[in-house]
């Protein structure tokens, strides 16, 4: 960007130029460069496209664009070619030559890289793939079209139009009113009405105010905020500036965890380029409104994502929460009125301004408006980020979009809301997903993690996982949370180790009551959710662990063991080389022998044993000494 955008007409002019520049080359290859695809080596892939395009002397005709996350991480790296509108999945560097030669030069399709549906049909266009067909991607759409490091790309998509409209034609009160009427609720977990938050900050007496983006996404297994901030940082920035104007703040912060290096970089780049263009700083778009933004990196603590804790962390202190009755909308960052919203909430703001009240409210349920991004992970065929209208059922999300459970297994539970959420059993699959329905069912929306578990998942073990996570992340300043979680975790450790005893469940229920009633912040207050929902829906699994010392899913290490079926083992030695502890030994063409004392139950042997042989057995209980056999030598 070399021109300053000092007025609204400057913005329109720049938008015209940017659009023209984008259409200058007739062909566009978009390569997903979100973290999921980068992990699947899309960085080298994009470089290879650059190289081959140059090799064939096509630079003047073909643009290679590195975009944000496409969401279909299961099949990454994703490549979409326009105007052919063809989507290639799991593309490797070796495929590049063929794609350029066949698709770009000859206009043909490389069929083997297309999506094949369950009926064996190849699907060309991205939007026709079942994973995408049922989604309504209003927030994530731009991710697939723009280079997140380019301000021009964002402006070409209509970016900063909402800001211009707000600054030139709306009073701050009108903006607050619009957000209030929209029914937008905080996407970070609690679902507090955003407009009310804004209003109370706006009405606070203190002159100096702040706005904060919470991108401290700590939920394990959730990466919605990361993908938005990485893939479309300007949309969050635009929302934040609008919020600053509405609330009366002149300084904003983006708090992003340092474990997301790409998000940190892209957020900082967006701020720098917006400032250089004049969209941040003094007198934005000639309207006299001043606003600037700083990035603050979080150093990795789940509890620091809590609003009061996050503000403490920005002040340079340990990010521990404080009592909530002192509202951050009046005494927040540096004791000044502060509005803190989640990444996705801020991204909704420009969308709301652009769509207008009626169109925005048309999507969603009575109490929850708009769309919600979920990170659909775990035992599901199509892992990825999905954006759906509020009110869609879990069944539609898991089966129609997610493609169901791999290997034809049965769904056991869906877990939403991260460590503070709850398990929903298969019987609740027809639950419409919105803030209120999930809370009523004993879980919560959370920031949008949606973890699918199949019959091979042990609910007791997973409950222990969540409780251990929370116990580890408790900041420790209030006793009920620190000690309550520690005791819960001890009990669950014992149960999983086969030392459960009668009365454990009652004790856990008591501890849950203590945690809920006496903890200082939401981390402790919501900690009972996983335990209670697990007990409510999967009591039988707990009983099996406690009373029979048996893990029905054969997951808990102390309650199962591996054995070799010597009648089936042909002595191929695959498992011998796959064992990390050399617990398996033997000679070729003779059944191998497993030394139980050395076995760490990693299951590698079972994975490598060919399915038609199937000689590794997973058995409940402890191994009987008699099953050990001496090595037979010839």
């Amino acid at each position, binding site marked *: 960007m070399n021109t300053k955008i000092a007025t609204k007409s400057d913005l329109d002019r720049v938008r015209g130029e940017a659009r023209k520049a984008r259409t200058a080359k007739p062909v566009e290859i978009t390569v997903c460069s979100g973290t999921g695809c980068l992990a*699947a080596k899309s960085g080298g892939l994009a470089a290879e496209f650059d190289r081959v395009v140059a090799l064939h002397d096509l630079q003047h005709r073909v643009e290679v664009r590195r975009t944000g996350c496409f969401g279909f991480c299961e099949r990454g790296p994703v490549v979409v070619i326009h105007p052919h509108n063809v989507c290639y999945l799991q593309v490797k560097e070796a495929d590049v030559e063929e794609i350029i030669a066949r698709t770009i030069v000859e206009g043909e399709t490389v069929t083997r890289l297309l999506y094949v549906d369950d009926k064996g049909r190849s699907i060309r266009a991205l939007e026709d793939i079942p994973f995408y067909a049922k989604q309504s991607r209003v927030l994530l759409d731009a991710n697939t079209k723009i280079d997140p490091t380019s301000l021009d790309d964002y402006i070409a998509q209509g970016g900063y139009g909402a800001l211009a409209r707000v600054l030139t034609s709306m009073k701050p009160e009108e903006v607050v009113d619009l957000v209030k009427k929209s029914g937008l609720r905080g996407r970070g977990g609690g679902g507090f009405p955003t407009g009310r938050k804004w209003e109370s900050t706006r009405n606070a007496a203190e002159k100096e105010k702040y706005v904060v983006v919470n991108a401290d996404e700590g939920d394990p297994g959730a*990466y919605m905020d990361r993908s938005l901030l990485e893939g479309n940082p300007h949309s969050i920035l635009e929302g934040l500036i609008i919020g600053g104007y509405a609330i009366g703040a002149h300084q904003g912060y983006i708090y992003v965890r340092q474990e997301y290096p790409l998000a940190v970089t892209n957020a900082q780049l967006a701020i720098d380029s917006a400032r250089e263009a004049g969209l941040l700083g003094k007198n934005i778009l000639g309207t006299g409104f001043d606003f600037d933004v700083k990035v603050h990196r979080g150093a990795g*603590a789940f509890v620091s994502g809590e609003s009061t804790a996050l503000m403490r962390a920005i002040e*340079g202190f340990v990010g*521990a929460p404080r009592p909530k009755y002192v509202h951050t909308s009046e005494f927040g960052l540096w004791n000044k009125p502060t509005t803190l919203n989640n990444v996705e909430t801020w991204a909704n703001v420009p969308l709301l301004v652009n769509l207008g009240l009626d169109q925005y409210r048309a999507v969603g349920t009575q109490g929850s408006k708009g769309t919600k991004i979920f990170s659909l*992970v*775990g035992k599901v065929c199509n892992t990825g980020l999905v954006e759906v209208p509020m009110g869609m059922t879990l069944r539609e999300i898991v089966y129609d979009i997610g493609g169901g459970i791999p290997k034809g297994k049965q769904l056991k539970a869906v877990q939403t809301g*991260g460590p503070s959420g709850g398990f929903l059993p298969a019987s609740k699959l027809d639950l419409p997903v919105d803030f209120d329905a999930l809370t009523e069912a004993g879980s919560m929306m959370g920031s949008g993690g949606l973890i699918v578990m199949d019959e091979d998942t042990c609910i007791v073990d997973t409950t222990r996982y969540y409780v251990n996570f929370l116990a580890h992340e408790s900041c420790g300043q209030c006793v009920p949370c620190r000690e309550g979680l520690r005791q819960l975790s001890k009990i669950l450790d014992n149960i999983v180790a086969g030392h459960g005893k009668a009365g454990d469940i009652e004790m856990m229920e008591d501890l849950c009551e203590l945690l809920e009633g006496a903890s200082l912040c939401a981390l402790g207050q919501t900690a009972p959710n996983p335990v209670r929902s697990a007990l409510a829906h999967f009591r039988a699994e707990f009983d099996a662990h406690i009373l029979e010392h048996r893990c029905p899913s054969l997951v808990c290490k102390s309650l199962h063991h591996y054995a070799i079926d010597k009648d089936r083992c042909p002595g191929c030695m695959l498992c011998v080389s796959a064992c990390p*502890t050399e617990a398996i030994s033997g000679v070729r063409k003779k059944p191998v022998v497993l030394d139980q004392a050395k076995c760490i139950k990693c299951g590698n042997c079972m994975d490598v044993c060919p399915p038609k042989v199937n000689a590794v057995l997973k058995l409940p209980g402890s191994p009987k000494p008699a099953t050990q056999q001496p090595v037979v030598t010839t």
Partner: protein
Amino acid sequence: MVSFVQNLGSSADVVVIDDEASIREGCRQALESEGYRALLADNGIDGLEMVKQVRPRVVLLDLRMPGISGVEVLDRLPGIDPRIIPIVITGYGSVDTAVNSMRRGAFDFISKPFDVDALLNTVGRAMKRYEETVEPQPLAPKAPARPATEPDAILKGLEAVGEFYQAGTQGSLSETLCALESEATYHARKLGRIHEKKKAVGELIEDVHLVDRVVERHDFRKNALIQIMLDLQSEKRWLPRHMLMWLSRRLNIPVARIYEVAHFYEAFSLEPQGAHTVQVCLGTACHVRRGPQLADSISSVLGVKPGGTDDKLQFTLKQVHCLGCCALAPVIKVDETYYGNPSLDDLKAIFASCEKKEQER
């Protein structure tokens, strides 16, 4: 007025503006007893003029005076020099007036009649505040244009210890240098691989300069503590004790608070890290896709417990909450590369290539 003219051209730490002569004189005696240089003015106009001339660090200001009021003086002070710390003297003992003046930028207030200790205590704190906002300047190795601070002196001493070892001089070290030397010994022991104290001292000096560079990048701001520590962590890969102690001196933050931050957040390591970091994701998606079993395998292949580092400082094994690429679950990250569901052979190949790279280096 007379005293003002007499004192023109001289410098002062504190300017006292009060219309009561006994208060002015009392302040002067108390301040001079502590070695501060004080100048006195009996009204706001003269006082402001004096402040313009001598640029004191602290202004003691009576609120009720003939002529322009203390509040007005208070408002004008930042225009002269924003670094000046105003302390208000209030005769009413009224909390409202005091609070009002604090809102207008006063650092603190003392109510008349006041005792000498309270006055000196408040002035002492104000001086400290002034130093925090103004003082610790970047350490310019070539042209130190500002007066040397305590950390500078220590750094000089440290460099002297380095030279001492470099030259192999015989003789005794002064007490301060002995302390530094023992810090170097501690560091050498901690690292294990640095057997020579000469090297340890060398590394100490390098680390201290690194802290200075990073602190300067963040303009010596105290509230940037976490950001500074993150930068140090990413450059040094761990936070040795001497770096944190140095940071404490530079930012004037107690070491205990720095350690509090270092212990609270996952990102900081207080132990030396291996040349390669192996991160095993144990997010929920990885957990249900057999992440824990993978973690066990890796632990036994490397012979390192989670959170630990091998003796040769080759590999550090970390279990992390979520790497955010759940489609590859269970996933590990070795340095900057991700691997989805690696087999035992994959793992062995990955670790072997790391070791090979290390040998080549």
